[in-house]
């Protein structure tokens, strides 16, 4: 009987070691998909972008949903890092991203975001990368577009939900407009619209845009209203209030692959820039995770690669993707490309 017992123990020990070895060897890198669940803003387009991206990728990386509320972002990310997650796809505001500085700096983690565009935020978080151009580029593009359209008096209205983004981008646009000799006034979202303007720039979320658009139309009639990149999402597109508005985005919606369109049609959604950027961010994080890239090597790795996104190739430079800035006019059911800038 003792012989059987020893043999059983040996077999079990070998099995345990083999399982552990096999598990360790086959343990996939984990990517956290960080989404807020208490936001009034609909993230369905970005979520759909991530979903389509994951479905198109090989099963070599494990994706996990990480939900957070506006109040517990740092805690959730910290716990996720402690649980071994090194790669994150995020859809943060610049303010939210700034909160994570103390949590992620010095850690061997990489965050790839599709929304944060503020250069200071991007630079102050060492492991943070964005799939969008920085607000400096966006501001230049918007000022350039206004200058090209020969508008002279620009009213810049900034929202009240993402102050870092809203303050920097509005001031940067004003600065760039000033360089072109164009007058600009910056107004808060809830201030009276009493300035003279032949064009309006909205730096706020889509909910805020839909909220303020009636006031703008009431005050300034059909003046061109240019929304920053944050404004253009499914919410905006789904509302008639955005009709005639010009949206800034970092993706070419007119050149989407047919398979992407079919995937969207199946789930009864229309493509938007946020969706495409979310798709691209997911692809980038997947490649980072698959190649087991550490935080110290991430920038070098990203700068040395060409990535194929939802609508073509893109590269990284100085922690952000170097894509064009597109201006689309929202007219009823269609988005019409007006202008692009690099």
């Amino acid at each position, binding site marked *: 009987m003792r012989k059987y017992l020893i043999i059983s123990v040996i077999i079990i020990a070998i099995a345990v070691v083999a399982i552990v070895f096999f598990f360790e060897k086959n343990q996939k890198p984990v990517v956290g998909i960080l989404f807020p669940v208490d936001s009034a803003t609909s993230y369905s387009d970005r979520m759909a972008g991530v979903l389509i991206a994951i479905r198109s990728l090989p099963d070599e990386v494990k994706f996990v*949903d990480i939900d957070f509320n506006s109040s517990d972002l740092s805690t959730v990310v910290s716990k996720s890092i402690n649980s071994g997650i090194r790669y994150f796809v995020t859809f943060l505001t610049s303010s939210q991203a700034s909160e994570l500085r103390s949590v992620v700096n010095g850690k061997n983690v990489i965050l790839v975001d599709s929304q944060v565009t503020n250069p200071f935020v991007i630079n102050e978080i060492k492991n943070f990368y964005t799939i969008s151009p920085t607000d400096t580029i966006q501001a230049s593009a918007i000022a350039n577009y206004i200058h090209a359209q020969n508008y002279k008096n620009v009213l810049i209205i900034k929202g009240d939900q993402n102050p870092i983004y809203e303050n920097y981008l509005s001031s940067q646009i004003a600065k760039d407009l000033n360089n072109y000799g164009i007058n600009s006034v910056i107004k808060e979202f809830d201030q009276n619209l009493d300035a003279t303007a032949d064009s309006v720039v909205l730096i706020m979320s889509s909910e805020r845009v839909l909220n303020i658009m009636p006031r703008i139309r009431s005050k300034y009639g059909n003046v061109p209203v240019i929304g920053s990149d944050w404004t253009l999402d499914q919410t905006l597109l789904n509302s008639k209030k955005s009709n005639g508005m010009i949206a800034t985005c970092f993706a070419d919606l007119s050149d989407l692959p047919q398979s992407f369109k079919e995937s969207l049609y199946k789930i009864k959604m229309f493509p938007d820039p946020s969706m495409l950027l979310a798709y691209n961010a997911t692809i980038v994080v997947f490649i980072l995770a698959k190649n087991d890239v550490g935080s110290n090597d991430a920038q070098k790795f990203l700068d040395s690669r060409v990535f194929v996104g939802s609508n073509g190739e893109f590269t990284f430079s100085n922690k952000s993707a170097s894509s064009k800035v597109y201006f689309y006019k929202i007219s009823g059911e269609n988005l019409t490309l007006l202008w692009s800038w690099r």
Partner: protein
Amino acid sequence: MTFKRFVIFLVVISVAFAIFDLYFQFVNIQNEMNEELTNLSAAFSERIEGITQFISIMQLSKNITLPSGIKGIIEINDDGNVVKSYGLENYTRALYDFSALSGTYISPITNVDGNPVITIATKSPSGIIAVEIDPRVALSNANLYIVDQSGFGVNLSSNEWKTFISVLAKNSNFIIDWPYLFVKEPTYGNYTLVNQVRISSIIYSALGASLPSYILILAIFFLTGFLYLHLKKKDKPVEEFLDFLSEIKTFRRYEGSEDQKFVKNYNDLVNEWDRVSKSYASVIDEISQTNTDLIKFNDLYAELPMIFERIDNEESFKDAIRIVARRILDLSKCVKGVGIKYGQQIFNIGTITPYDFQSNTKFTLGIKTHSSTLDFVLDLDKFTTTDIFKELLVSLLHHVGSVVSMYELRTERNESARYDPLTELLTRQEFSNLVFREIEILKRENEQSAFVLVDIKDFKEFNDRYGHFEGDVLMKYIAKVIKNSTRITDISCRWGEDSFAIYFANFKKTDMKTKESEIIGKIKEFKRSVNVKIGVSYYPQDGETFEELMKMAEERSNTQSE
């Protein structure tokens, strides 16, 4: 099948059964979860389809009270303009486009003031009617979520929001993402019902459901344990017996329990071995005893002639018989008494009494000797006396008889040598020996004696005349006369062929004439005419030696006239 193999078989079967039962319970739980989701999906679809069907045929009046569960309603004409709306002012491009295209549309979930809202739209006779509803229902299962096409979900019975992008991205309906198991079921539109369950709770449920099986298995194990202990108890004597065998150095009996048949067989073998050994030892003892007896018998055989060789008179013969009786008694302890009857003489030793010669209760043997009978009566111990001893004894007794016979023959032969066979008087040699000793006695005692020689004259002619038979008769007659004329202390013999010698002890010369006359007178009385001469010599007057005296007697007989 040995008990160990049986236990291993039982363990394997039990483990297999436990695994199978656990798997069965898992499948049950899975089926229950599937069924729950299927039912819920059917209910959800039925609800949405009901609403869709309801709004597809309705026309909004000016004042409308929204039914329970409907948060807002909007009517859009074919141009995309809002005709009427209650609690729902805007509609999405997707709503309009997909409703116009496919007849119905269900929007992703939106968060309106913290509450989940989905918009359902359908074409109606007047255009498109869309309603906003809260998808939640009262459910006891707190783990069920309704998830839209982008992976955004809300708990069906609470206000908990969650994203299920990674779950929706998987093709399988069962996704294990430790510590959760996600079971999903597509439902109306692009929605998915997701059941998020902790794997531990499933395991607990499965284990709970399998509890009766485990109790059964446990009971079987307990019973097996009892059986094992029982058999162990039963096996214990076997193990002890095996230990006994492993240490055994001599073939000996096992003193433990004999419950097992082979133990009993073993002990039977040992008993048989002991019996054979004892029998062998007994035979060896018997042989040894027989050898000892044989040695004693041989000694006695060798001693017997010597015993009887020294006999020179009757007393010594008796002593010899007594010695023989003693030797026979000493042959073995089984001989308790010996009795020998020779003629009318009885010699007994040990437990034998003269009476035993008359009763037939003891071992008896009668042997006819040369001139007598030799009867033996022996008291033999019936328990220790062996047959071979008896046979040896009988042989010995016969040999004793032979030796006695030899003694008798020798005695008889010796007697024949002393006496003349015709006259039965001493021979000349024997007469010479006796008289020689008598002369030595005469010298010491200074007595007188007379020597007489009687000679038959012309005996040859007598024989020629009357025959040798008649001559023998004459010789016997003269010998009888001499015997009748002499005392018991006197010695007479046949001196020659036709002469007789007589020694008269303490006989005076003066008495001789009378004696001579008496002898001659009686001889003359023989029926035939006989001429005898008598010569006498006297001691010590005529000589002091036998030869001198007999010579003198012969000379006087020759010179005597008839």
